[in-house]
């Protein structure tokens, strides 16, 4: 059992939890993830390690409530336990020799990008962050990102805060203003990562994206998380989740993400019925 030592609501559907998991905390690095199971009926749910405290023995996760599992997780309170919590999984991000980087976060992707921005910043690199949200109510981690960046640009699709428009427009501006980046990190919806990769390709800027395919074991044992990178099949859980954005087959990845759409709807509806049943009893 893994205790929730802290819970915070970052935006209506985004929550942060600090979990007591000393073994994971001891080894965790930016770019890695954990897999948790809320209870014995639960599915295995991968979430990025947003932060860790080796002394305290805690690991921070930030998640968006999108379906049955993340909603059940969101209902747990401080002091309660999560049944299973395994990690750290995946390959840690490598930043050797990076002097200047642009970190692009799309929506919840900001939470996944944050530990990478923080690490780069701690290493002394100059970090320009561009984070995009649909509207101002969905903005998360603004102060954290701002601490980790020498420049932070926030965009919203509707202009309700920051600049109206897409993260790619802002990145393009920065590049054209003469900023030379050793690395662009783009994390967010597949369509956004694809757009960023297409933007940076002609400039020849190394671009790393974080792939989040459907996973189950997270240890290279099922192959469910396969993505095509540079024409080769890779398992995102052990070969990634970070890959070269210029090599990833995004169209295939987008298709594969729809594999369980109908099941996910059914699972959520069934879950709601169950909750109703409990209140009636």
């Amino acid at each position, binding site marked *: 059992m893994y205790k929730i030592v802290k819970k915070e609501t970052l935006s209506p559907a985004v929550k942060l939890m600090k979990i007591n998991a000393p*073994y*994971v905390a*001891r*080894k965790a690095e930016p770019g890695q993830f954990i897999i948790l*199971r809320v209870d014995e*009926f*639960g*599915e*295995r749910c991968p979430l990025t390690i947003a932060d860790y405290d080796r002394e305290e023995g805690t690991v921070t996760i930030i998640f968006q409530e999108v379906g*049955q*599992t993340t909603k059940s997780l969101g209902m747990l309170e401080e002091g309660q336990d999560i*049944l*299973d*919590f*395994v*990690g*750290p*999984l995946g390959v840690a991000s490598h930043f050797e020799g990076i002097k200047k980087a642009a970190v692009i976060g799309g929506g919840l992707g900001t939470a996944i990008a944050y530990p990478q921005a923080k690490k780069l910043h701690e290493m002394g690199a100059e970090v320009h962050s561009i984070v995009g949200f649909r509207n101002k109510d969905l903005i998360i981690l603004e102060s954290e990102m701002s601490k980790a960046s020498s420049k932070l640009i926030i965009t919203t699709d509707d202009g309700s805060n920051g600049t109206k428009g897409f993260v790619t427009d802002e990145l393009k501006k920065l590049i054209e203003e003469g900023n030379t980046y050793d690395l662009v990190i783009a994390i967010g919806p597949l369509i956004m990562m694809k757009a960023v990769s297409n933007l940076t390709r002609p400039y020849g800027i190394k671009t790393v994206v974080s792939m989040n395919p459907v996973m*189950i*074991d997270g*240890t*290279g*044992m*099922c*192959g*469910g998380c*396969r993505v*095509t990178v540079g024409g080769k*099949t890779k398992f995102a859980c*052990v070969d990634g989740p970070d890959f070269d954005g210029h090599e990833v087959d995004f169209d*295939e990845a987008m*298709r*594969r993400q*729809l*594999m*369980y759409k109908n*099941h*996910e709807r*059914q*699972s959520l509806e*069934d*879950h709601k019925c169950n909750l109703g049943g409990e209140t009636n009893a």
Partner: protein
Amino acid sequence: MPNMSPDKVKMPEQEPDVRNKNFLEVALGYTPEMAQEEAKRCLQCKNKPCVAGCPVNVKIPEFIQHVANGEFEKAYEKITETNSLPAICGRVCPQESQCEKLCVRGIKGEPVAIGRLERFVADWFMQNSKPQAKSIQKNGTKVAVIGSGPAGLTCAGDLVNLGYDVTIFEAFHTPGGVLMYGIPEFRLPKALVQKEIDSLKQLGVEIKTNMVIGKVLSLDELKDEGYKAMFIGTGAGLPNFMGIPGENLNGVYSSNEFLTRINLMKAYLFPQYGTPVKVGKNVAVVGGGNVAMDAARSAKRLGAENVYIVYRRSEKELPARLEEIHHAKEEGIIFKLLTNPTKIIGTDEGWVKGIECVEMELGEPDSSGRRRPVVKKNSEHIIDVDTVIIAIGQSPNPLIKSTTKGLDTHDWGGIIVEEATGATSKEGVYAGGDAVTGAATVILAMGAGKTAAKAIDEYLRND
């Protein structure tokens, strides 16, 4: 007077068209009367040919004599002198190529049903024995076992009985290895595997789940934590794909993924259990081993209308246990033999809609002595399916190797060991089971766990 019937006493089973809709165990087991009747078919041969066919040399005629006499507890003790998981082996050993293959009764008629008898004895014991608190003299030496499949469980059991403080580290949230995540409930009830695990815990074995060794702790760090010796029983979990076009379409599964979703995550009880599985109407399972049979029979149970086994050699070469092939046929699985997939075809949206195959014919024998299948000209054809499950084998997972300095492995990933002891190239580190041999059998993994436990004990005594 021995029972001279040429046939085994029949095992009661669920009817095929009932059982292909549920996940309850197919074979129901002997009653004591049936077991005694079958036991009387054993001729108590002086030279015991059957024993040589068993990888752990179960004392077969002796235990069968006890069964014939109705001394079931004594039979159990006899079996467990060399085999610590008889309820499991009795169910899943490929008896026809091991103990029963060499049984003299098999020359004219069927061999003695050694596996069924072993299963009977183990089940009887679980139901009728009272657990007795065994007191073991502890020696205070810590040993780590990595992986909780049959190899790890057996090694841990033997070591704890010798007085060691044994901790098992398991990557998954549930211990048991393939016994839990691979072999389906209808062939090996999980409650039974759980019982074996619980009895190890009772003996004092500690099991730490959610620990991916190589990630959370390295072998060297385990050593720093005071483990004086280690056993690696991490199995062969890396799924092989065919490398044909279309393998990343939606609806293509590795057998590992398909079976893990169903067995470990209980997707057959979705949405009560949260993990989904998409079975489809028409399913092709590529491969001919136990894994392929399990995937096919699971798909059928989950409502698939047509389930095909697509296998490139002929019936004779099917590597699965005879009983599973027989059960699969009874349950309506369609065998497309001498058929080899060349391409998986998808819809515009990226979902599987068919599998293109060629027919094969058997040519000259290859290095393994089996006749090599060669492609028949102009035999391309398409089988309409919406799900493809690839069950063509697994290799050892590279995780431990890639994170452990000084651990020698073969090119194909198997850990290199000294056969007689299981010792690896790294001091104090032993290995066995599928991690060493590649995908093999439960009983061989168990045997390797035993060998290593003995060697670890000797190593630590001389330390």
